[in-house]
């Protein structure tokens, strides 16, 4: 039987978010839009077609993956840390019939939901600007957004579990997120990298998110779907499993 005990935790986060939904959505959209439009038009003018399409079209899928990753990451680092460490929201919930697993599943689902929301926002921009080839395949980006959100939510919660303060998150950004953005195929095809760098990039979860998203925007069925889905799931599941164990050690010792 599927257990929905986490739902009140998800709902709590949703209700807080709803109060500030406007600015939050704007924040979700503004940053990736600036990247996509600024680089897409600006660099795009200097570039020939990339993989047979204008650079802006090429960049659209990367932007979606990047934005979805960021949503889940910020939610599980800064926001979840506030709830866990600063506001003691998790402690309060743990005194009720809910367990730590319920709390963290609620957080995982919530961060994934926020990723989906970001994905939908970018998808609308892609649709409005006509940057896609096949509308049906474009809709397949929604499950990709969910999967990518899940992956980075699981990983983010694991980092959250071991963080002594907000400053600690900078290590994760410097050592994991930024390399992924620069090597994961967001801005250029991975084939442009020398072999040894491409070999590293092949292990990064964001690479697999981009490998799923880009063909869908450009009107093709992605190659190697199984591998990409497996990698994203694996990072997410292992991340969440570690997060649960580490947070249990942190809060319920």
């Amino acid at each position, binding site marked *: 039987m599927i257990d929905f005990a986490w739902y009140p935790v998800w*709902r*709590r986060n949703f209700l807080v978010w709803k109060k500030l939904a406007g600015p939050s959505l704007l924040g979700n959209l503004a940053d990736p839009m600036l990247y996509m439009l600024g680089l897409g038009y600006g660099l795009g003018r200097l570039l020939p077609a990339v993989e047979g399409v204008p650079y802006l079209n090429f960049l659209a899928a990367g932007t979606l993956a990047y934005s979805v990753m960021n949503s889940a990451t910020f939610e599980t680092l800064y926001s979840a840390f506030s709830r866990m460490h600063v*506001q*003691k929201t998790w*402690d*309060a919930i743990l*005194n009720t019939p809910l367990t730590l697993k319920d709390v963290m599943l609620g957080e995982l689902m919530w961060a994934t939901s926020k990723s989906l929301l970001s994905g939908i926002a970018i998808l609308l921009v892609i649709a409005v600007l006509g940057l896609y080839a096949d509308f049906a395949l474009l809709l397949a980006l929604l499950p990709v957004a969910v999967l990518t959100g899940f992956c980075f939510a699981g990983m983010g919660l694991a980092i959250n579990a071991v963080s002594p303060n907000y400053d600690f998150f900078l290590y994760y950004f410097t050592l994991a997120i930024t390399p992924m953005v620069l090597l994961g195929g967001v801005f250029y095809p991975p084939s442009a990298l020398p072999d040894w760098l491409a070999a590293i990039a092949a292990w990064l979860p964001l690479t697999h998110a981009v490998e799923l998203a880009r063909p869908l925007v450009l009107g093709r069925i992605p190659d190697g779907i199984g591998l990409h889905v497996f990698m994203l799931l694996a990072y997410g599941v292992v991340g969440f499993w570690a997060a649960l164990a580490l947070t249990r050690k942190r809060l319920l010792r």
Partner: protein
Amino acid sequence: MNAPLRLTNLCKQYGGTLVVDGLDLELEAGRCHGLLGPNGAGKTTTLRLALGLIGADAGTVELLGHPMPADAALARRKVGVVPQVDSLDPDFTVRENLHTYGRYFGMKGAEIEARIPDLLDFSGLNGKADAPILTLSGGMKRRLTLARALVNDPDLVFLDEPTTGLDPQARHLIWQGLRRLIARGKTLLLTTHFMDEAERLCDVISVIDHGRVIVRGSPRELIASNIEPHVVEIYGDGLAEWKACASDFCRRCEQAGETLFCYTEAPERVVAELATRPGLRYLHRPANLEDVFLKLTGRDLRD
């Protein structure tokens, strides 16, 4: 009736130190129980074990008839907790805080809404339903935390230092609330550093130190059986000379800083003798729970 909480030979160690060391505690339904002890005596760990948040290394916990931590989720359905640290949701109003918390117990919106007027009335927060948390005073926040702990209509309420940091007016309001809870038949387990609070509210007090219960009884019993009935606190010039012959007048003396605490059954003799020593100043009062606490756990600072 079954004990709402029964701890038997409970042990919990951290890094080789036994924080809880063979602790036994049994609560009687419908009574207010005090758990007193210096910092580090094991109070908070005991509460966490009782709630099933952590597992014991040895011994058993039975909460509302359920073995813990195996049945923790089930047992906590009828338990309320007022934690030491404020954990209200700062983004929510008073009403939203109660609603959100009720949902964690699986309650429906309408069910919670129906309880809100009573909870607000109980906690003296009438008219504050839609106030943001940031606009509440410290006392109001504590009262809301108490109301929040009652949203599921618990049989047993844990209160971890419920009045720490409050002014006297706010403390008295909390006490009134707790008395009404006892009158409604709830069982309370209260930890506090305020001996007057424990003396006023608790039917039964357990003093714990080094992870075990060292004495248990009503405030009156504890005072009667552990300490002389009168205390004369003496300070001023000539204290050293007085101390040298104090044992002629009182049964037991303890010096803390510049003050000598004389414990005695016959305060008249002490007071008469003190009248002949004009350099000394004194305060004569009946012995209280704090005297018992200090006698049993010592005057040394615990950090």
